[in-house]
């Protein structure tokens, strides 16, 4: 009898709640009971609340078991692999949370063994790169432009225009710089993709390199992701061994290689020009723009700077055509976004959906409301620089322009839920405090304004001239927003203003730090 395939994710969230211990227990139990198994460490499907999510393949169907602990393992074997058990969910491809998604970019996550070239090849791996070689660079640029894909790091700049600009700029050396400095709280989609489909990212970067004429790529990975670092390091070795990176890939005449760099705990390094400075070995201080990185980027050379998810959306655009991608979504927000449900939510995880879905649908239908069971008080979208939406605004459709209209932003798609016990005055204070900790210090509104912001909010909480200080805080927000060099100082006012607008009463009731 063939060995039974058992999948246990090797992904940060799964491992953080015991997946490694479960894998060890499964291997031990198989040996003890003489059952032949093949243990596969897949990526995560993104249903984080079910982790560790173990799957057993029976007659080609993968049967899922949720929240498995090492203590459950003997029981799983005793029931017969795939058999009845308290934690059995049934086939993984019937879980509503997963099947009701529009998986364009994350479709291989969870499905495949991330560190198997063979498995990757069985699931369309490198097909898009081969097609790119056949179609030529301009066809790829045209497909990306037609797709309407916009930067998923948060800024939402049209990717096709960026790539075309780099392609059209003269340069003896060009670069692809992948921004994997996923610092926004409430976001983990880059990490999930890099851990679940690292070869897919490598293929995407090679396609970008081919399209714009860049022979070198960099991945700037935050140091808070050590497991991701190990997985990416191995994937890069595999890709080189397989001839998918290096000189003259597949006899195409095109050469491309990728260097993996680690960040060092600076939030601002997620801003593209600060990231370029850091990649050059310097302090991660924001550059003035212009020049744009597309003209003068890394080491002064034309550079495509794209977020992980942006890049990883490209292979299917190449394979299926840009129009197919543009058919999803609404208005000028085309395609899908990998939303991340986080914080106080019952079913947290990744939901890749076409734009236009509302926040409420994501929180209620997918997320199942708060983890605490209490009412939702506020939802922060788009990371620490994103506004706090009150419950009344949750019917806003997720669309870049619709969010701009309500003074909010979608950013990298992180959705952090707070229940009615949250003290929003403290959240406003934290926004300023975080800015003070992370400011690169180059411009005054951000460097000084953030510290003054904390002081003013402290006075308001203490009841010391609350009305005058309210006015002062609004004025400070204006200054930071108008005069900061980048989004760090320029958008820190968003969460602060949203608290002033919707939760001002919390300044009076705040219990202090």
């Amino acid at each position, binding site marked *: 009898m063939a060995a039974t395939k058992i999948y246990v994710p090797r992904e940060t969230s799964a491992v953080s709640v015991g997946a490694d211990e479960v894998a060890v227990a499964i291997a031990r139990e198989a040996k003890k009971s003489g059952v032949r198994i093949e243990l596969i460490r897949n990526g995560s499907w993104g249903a984080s609340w079910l982790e560790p999510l173990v799957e057993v393949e029976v007659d080609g169907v993968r049967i899922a078991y949720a929240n498995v602990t090492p203590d459950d393992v003997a029981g799983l074997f005793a029931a017969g692999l795939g058999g009845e058990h308290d934690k059995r969910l049934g086939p993984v491809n019937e879980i509503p949370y997963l099947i009701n998604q529009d998986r364009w970019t994350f479709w291989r996550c969870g499905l495949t063994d991330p560190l198997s070239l063979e498995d990757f090849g069985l699931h369309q791996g490198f097909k898009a790169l081969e097609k790119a070689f056949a179609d030529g660079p301009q066809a790829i640029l045209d497909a990306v432009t037609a797709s309407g894909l916009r930067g998923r790091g948060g800024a939402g700049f049209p990717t096709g225009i960026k790539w075309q600009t780099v392609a059209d700029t003269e340069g003896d050396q060009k670069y692809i710089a992948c921004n994997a400095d996923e610092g926004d709280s409430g976001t983990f989609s880059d990490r999930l993709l890099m851990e679940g489909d690292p070869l897919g990212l490598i293929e995407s970067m090679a396609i970008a390199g081919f399209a714009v004429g860049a022979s070198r790529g960099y991945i700037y990975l935050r140091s*808070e992701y050590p497991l991701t670092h190990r997985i990416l390091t191995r994937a890069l070795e595999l890709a080189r061994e397989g001839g998918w990176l290096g000189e003259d890939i597949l006899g195409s005449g095109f050469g491309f290689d990728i260097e993996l760099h680690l960040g060092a705990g*600076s939030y601002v390094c997620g801003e593209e020009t600060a990231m370029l400075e850091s990649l050059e070995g310097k302090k991660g201080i924001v550059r003035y723009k212009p020049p744009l990185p597309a003209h003068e980027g890394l080491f002064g050379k034309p550079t495509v700077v794209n977020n992980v998810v942006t890049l990883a959306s490209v292979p299917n655009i190449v394979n299926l055509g840009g129009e197919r991608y543009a058919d999803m979504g609404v208005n000028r927000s085309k395609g899908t976004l990998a939303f991340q449900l986080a914080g106080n939510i019952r079913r947290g995880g990744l939901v890749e959906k076409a734009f236009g879905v509302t926040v409420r649908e994501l929180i209620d239908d997918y997320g199942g409301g708060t983890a605490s069971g209490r009412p939702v008080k506020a939802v922060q979208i788009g990371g620490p620089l994103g506004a706090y939406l009150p419950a009344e605004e949750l019917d806003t459709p997720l669309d870049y322009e619709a969010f701009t209209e309500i003074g909010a932003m979608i950013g990298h798609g992180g959705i952090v839920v707070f229940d009615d016990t949250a003290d929003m005055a403290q959240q406003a204070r934290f926004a300023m405090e975080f800015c003070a900790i992370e400011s690169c210090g180059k411009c005054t509104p951000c460097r000084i304004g953030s510290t003054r912001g904390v002081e003013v909010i402290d006075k308001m909480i203490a009841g010391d001239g609350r009305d005058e200080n309210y006015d002062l805080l609004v004025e400070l927000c204006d200054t930071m927003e108008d005069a900061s060099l980048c989004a760090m100082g320029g958008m820190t006012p968003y969460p602060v203003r949203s608290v002033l607008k919707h939760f001002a009463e919390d300044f009076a009731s705040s219990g202090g730090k």
Partner: protein
Amino acid sequence: MRQGIEREAISTIVSEFGGKPELLVQILQAIVTRHGWVPEDAIRQLAFELNLSRADVYGVVNYYHDFRTEAPGKHIVKICQAEACQAMGSRALTAHAHESLGASFHETSDDVTLEPVYCLGNCACAPAIMIDNKTHGRVDASRFDSLVEGLRESG
């Protein structure tokens, strides 16, 4: 003992990165990963070996949170302070950690250094902490205590 890190150890790392000044951040990251911190002497040495000014190297060391300039304890415990974890009680968990370890942030007590971290990307399994480069999720006070207990037992 020369402030903890041998000259040769630093030189080895510099040569692993080809002595390239543009890889300073990577070199420092390797030093911190292997040795835990960046001593003053290492800054002088790096400036010399990479042909940079001491001010350049010091500036970079000082800029990034990861580059500690004081030796940490044997174990490093980081507690996420960012919003998703706040929404799941990280403030209370942090208060518990201060109390149970007898250490504020950036302090070391009984060989455990406590540090804040702003997002571990484990936001759907909050609150999250990191112990010696491994992330743990769904950490309440009792799980925190047993994880720290595990550190003490492993020595």
